[in-house]
């Protein structure tokens, strides 16, 4: 069976984002960009399914600028078989991403689509659920374990613990942090990835309008907390807690 994996090029996890002085957004000029960490987990999960014999082909998809090719090459180097870049310089919202992915799913007919649960730039946590709705497929969000047979059994990280659901295939799964630990691509695999097929398309090829529904009016830094005081001993800390009425 075929697995589709969606990946996004985002600011690197270790970079502290800086808000632009003019309040129009976050400054991404000359900032290190990487694959969204949750999407790395999605790619890794697809590869593990293939290694176990549960999946036969992995198609990685990214929607973004020309440079998102690098992100797709990373996915290919990790072990995806081929890639599709839907190239656009627009900032595409989850709803439009989901529409494009739904069209690709209709073409490719995967049994499973795996996505990160959220991108660490816009923090929406929406694309996977929207894709599942558009396709009319079941969804296993925030997955910490995925088992495939003729259905998918997905363990989900929820507020009260761990919930397990059974999904008919085809289905959409979104990854949480503890699903797996993504591998690093080896140098030979990075070289090999350069010759794997990568098709370039545009949103228009799928008939999807990527015009934004949410208009960003301004972006500001959050109110900063002032650093407070240091106390020198546990006794002083206890006094402070008593002062706050937290301790008796």
């Amino acid at each position, binding site marked *: 069976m075929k697995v589709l994996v969606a990946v996004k090029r985002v600011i690197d996890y270790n970079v502290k984002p800086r808000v632009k002085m003019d309040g129009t957004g976050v400054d991404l000029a000359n900032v290190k960009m990487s694959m969204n960490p949750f999407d790395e987990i999605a790619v890794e999960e697809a590869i593990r399914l293939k290694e176990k014999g549960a999946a036969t082909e992995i198609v990685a998809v990214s929607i973004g600028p020309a440079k998102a090719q690098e992100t797709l090459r990373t996915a290919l180097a990790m072990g995806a078989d081929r890639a599709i870049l839907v190239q656009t310089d627009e900032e595409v919202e989850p709803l439009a991403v989901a529409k494009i992915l739904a069209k690709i799913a209709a073409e490719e007919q995967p049994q499973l689509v795996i996505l990160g649960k959220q991108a660490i730039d816009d923090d929406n946590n*929406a694309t996977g659920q929207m894709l*599942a*709705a558009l396709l009319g497929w079941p969804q296993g969000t925030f997955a910490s374990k995925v088992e495939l047979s003729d259905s998918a059994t997905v363990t989900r990280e*929820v507020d009260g613990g*761990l919930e397990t659901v059974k999904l008919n295939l085809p289905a959409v799964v979104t990854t949480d942090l*503890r699903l797996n630990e993504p591998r690093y691509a080896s140098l030979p695999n990075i070289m090999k990835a350069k010759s794997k097929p990568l098709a370039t398309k545009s949103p228009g090829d799928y008939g999807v309008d990527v015009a*934004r529904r949410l208009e960003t009016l301004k*972006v500001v830094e959050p109110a900063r907390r002032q650093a407070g005081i240091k*106390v020198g001993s546990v006794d002083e800390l206890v006094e402070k807690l008593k002062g706050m009425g937290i301790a008796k």
Partner: protein
Amino acid sequence: MSALVLVEHDGSTIKDATLATVTAAAKLGEVHALVAGSDAAAQAAAKIAGVAKVYSANGAGLEHQLAEAVAPVAAKLMESHDSFVAPATTTGKNIAPRVAALLDVMQVSDVLSVESADTFTRPIYAGNAIATVKSNDAKKVLTVRTTAFEKAAADGGSASVEQVDAGAGDGGSSFVGLEASESERPELTSAKVIVSGGRAFGSSEQFHSLLDPLADKLGAAVGASRAAVDAGYAPNDYQVGQTGKIVAPQVYVAIGISGAIQHLAGMKDSKTIIAINKDEEAPIFQVADIGLVGDLFKIVPELTEKL
């Protein structure tokens, strides 16, 4: 104008997250509530101050609030509502985008404030930036950060309860089980005091043997950094941070937590932050109101004893 709130419940009682969601929704119009899969919770929702009407939906999949079952019911009700408002909990985040896609609406996630009927603020980049966004969709779908809104009173309302057709559709998913975290302590997202531990605890045994007695003394909930959860010291639902729980208690005590931006994103709105760390350069001290530099293995037992 009317707003439909997704009620989060455990089968009988309403979760606190719902109450904050009602407050946010009230800024958008008359508040109606959708309760999936529990008549008892529907009765409780009818008592929430400010709720004018409750829709109670029962049927396959709804008792476990599966997104595949709840979303079509909500989408149908949205024919007569202007906005859909869900708490940004794992339940709300699972269901709301599915509703949004069925309505062809772009969701506004994790709303911090309602500026007007179509304009909202929300955190992006792990809370390192706050965006003001205007939704150009005719209907709105929001998830709200529940710590950013006061809780509506759980009593005082007397809404009518209307049964709604749950539809027949099998959404292709079924509930298998819930491995619930058992705890006598308050829930993280509604606790007044939280003590939270990091990787510095070194093991699950030390995490619990040191933190649990302190939490008991303070009547606190126990949280953890991502590093501590990844290391297996604490279960997943203890995680506070960008991708875990967002908390804003009266007092947050961070012990052995260095203060990665992803962790700060989850707790920096706490009223008072207390940090205990052996590294005086740790970033956590930049946000802490009260800091104590030292070895947690000495400090925590001493603190527990002296409280």
